[in-house]
């Protein structure tokens, strides 16, 4: 398990290659990457706040839970905080399993939990000002499937 909560940008490609290279025995690797959306070319930026201490524990607990539910070879979660520009990667999840169904399910599970149960809060900064992103009902509903 590799969990990192960091202010610095991360190299999605390099992390994906390193992850795929170390999961001997796995036949399937799934990655999810969340990006700051460029809304129609409008200059977008995002400020992400988190709860140091609780964040790392909450994410580690989610990964542990995923490992009890699916047959995983390995999993990785990287999540940034601080100020991010449009197009930048906010976070990534990677899962590796023998078969694709486990890798996909675990990645979706981790995403659903990260969205609504890891202590991060996003503030969108645009020409109109700054606004805290509201939690979406669909995101809370998505947790019910697990």
């Amino acid at each position, binding site marked *: 398990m590799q969990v990192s909560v960091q202010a610095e940008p991360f190299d999605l490609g390099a992390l994906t290659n390193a992850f795929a290279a170390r999961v001997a025995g796995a036949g399937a690797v799934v990655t999810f990457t969340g990006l700051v959306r460029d809304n129609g070319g409008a200059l977008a930026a995002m400020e992400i706040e988190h709860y140091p201490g609780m964040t790392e524990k909450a994410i580690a607990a989610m990964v542990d839970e995923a490992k009890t539910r699916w047959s995983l070879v390995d999993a990785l979660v990287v999540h940034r905080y601080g100020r991010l520009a449009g197009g930048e990667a906010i976070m990534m999840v990677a899962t590796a399993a023998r078969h694709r169904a486990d890798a996909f399910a675990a990645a979706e599970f981790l995403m659903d939990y990260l969205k609504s149960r*890891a202590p991060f809060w996003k503030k969108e900064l645009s020409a109109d000002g700054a606004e805290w992103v509201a939690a979406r009902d669909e995101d809370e509903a998505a947790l019910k499937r697990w």
Partner: protein
Amino acid sequence: MIDVLYFAWVRERIGVPRERIETSAATVMELITELKAREERYDWAFGDLASLRVAVDQELSSFEASLAGVRELAFFPPMTGG
């Protein structure tokens, strides 16, 4: 004495990211009621409990949770990670 932390718009409404609070409240809900009576900014931050979440010693918890032995409390809106 409990360390109380605030995040996102709860922090903005309270005006500080954390403070140490002296209280004899037995539960999270009792503390909220006590704080709301103290100052307007708490009333503003804790006005709509449906949009408030609480973590007790860094674990998501409920407003009914006991404060016995608790060292750290955090209030924040629903999380929006990922």
